[in-house]
């Protein structure tokens, strides 16, 4: 090349290369970055919906009450009324959606002792027993009905 551009020719080529690189970057970025990235912050807005779409496993007390009002009423006069059904019965949304799905039977003794076995860490207002002294490790159920554990209740 002749004339005034002779000395900057290499710079022109370099800037052309640079511009091509920039263009490639812009195209690639537009291609790979999702549209909703940055909508609320430096993250993909759709990720929130992804997390929220996860299926539930625990049905919640309201769902249980729809069919099992009797049991809820049984517990109503006792201190166990504040305890959710699924605390002892386990996660039961599948059962709530389809009553045919069986409810696993848990061992009452184990369930009672989870909360009521004596342990130094437990707050003093929590009613606890040493199972061996209290019932010689016999089942709790003959004396304490789980929904209403007060002693005068029919098992």
């Amino acid at each position, binding site marked *: 090349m002749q004339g005034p551009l002779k000395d900057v020719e290499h710079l022109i080529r370099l800037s052309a290369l640079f511009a091509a690189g920039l263009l490639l970057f812009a195209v690639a970025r537009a291609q790979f970055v999702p549209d909703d990235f940055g909508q609320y912050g430096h993250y993909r807005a759709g990720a929130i919906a992804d997390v929220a779409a996860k299926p539930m496993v625990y049905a919640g007390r309201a769902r249980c009450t729809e069919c099992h009002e009797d049991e809820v009423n049984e517990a109503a006069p006792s201190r166990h009324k504040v305890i959710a059904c*699924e605390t002892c019965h386990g996660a039961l949304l599948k059962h709530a959606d389809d009553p045919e799905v069986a409810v696993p039977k848990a061992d009452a003794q184990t369930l009672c002792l989870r909360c009521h076995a004596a342990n130094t860490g437990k707050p003093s207002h929590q009613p606890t027993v040493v199972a061996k002294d209290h019932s010689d490790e016999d089942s709790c159920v003959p004396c304490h009905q789980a929904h209403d554990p007060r002693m005068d209740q029919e098992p």
Partner: protein
Amino acid sequence: METTRRDFLMVGTKLLVMTAATASALERVLAGAADAAAPYNTADHWWAMLIDVEKCIGGGHCVRACKTENDVVDEPMYFRTWVERYHIDMSDPDHPVVDSPDGGINGFSEKYAEGDGKTFFVPKLCNHCADSPCTQVCPVGATFRTNDGVVLIDKDYCVGCRYCVQACPYGCRYLDPRSHTADKCTLCYHRLTRGMVPACVEVCPTGARQIADLKNPNDPAHEYLRTHKIQVLKPQMATGAKVYYNGLDGAVR
């Protein structure tokens, strides 16, 4: 009438704007038809959790429920929430002994004697910090705090670098070996957005855990926070932790 350049541009722009507006309105109607019952708006909520240490009996119901609800990995035994037992021996009160066998998932067997110092249980979980270090270190924008105050992970974006696992001052994150992505408590976001309480709150038999929406003026949490001696973990780190503890012993870290 001759169309001038100005007229053409004006009409063209109006048409463009109107189609966009109609299209977005239609989109809203179509999307809303499916879950019109309770539209969840992130701007209406600011989630936090209250934990009453004096009510925790260490039964591990929360740990089991969390594992079940969120399919938390068992091998290795990782947790989104766990329970710690603190024991402060009066002969050495500066060095509390902490244990958490399997995160307290099966409760705690007797280890200390009555009157032998102070023993208590502390449930732990992600603090859903307002200014979280874990979201700040993520190099790819895979973890973030939502407008309603919940720290979440984008599993599609996470590259599994573990920076966030190290950055969390509370040890609340782990790398899920199944997906090779970071994982943590979501405050059961999939339940909150459906108007339900988190699984751990649902099953806690003593009400030691309560979910709180601090943007709801009728939430009883406001009065609770005002009238109790509330602490957060590691306040000196200024993370804006939103798990509020009542009756927390100063020894808890």
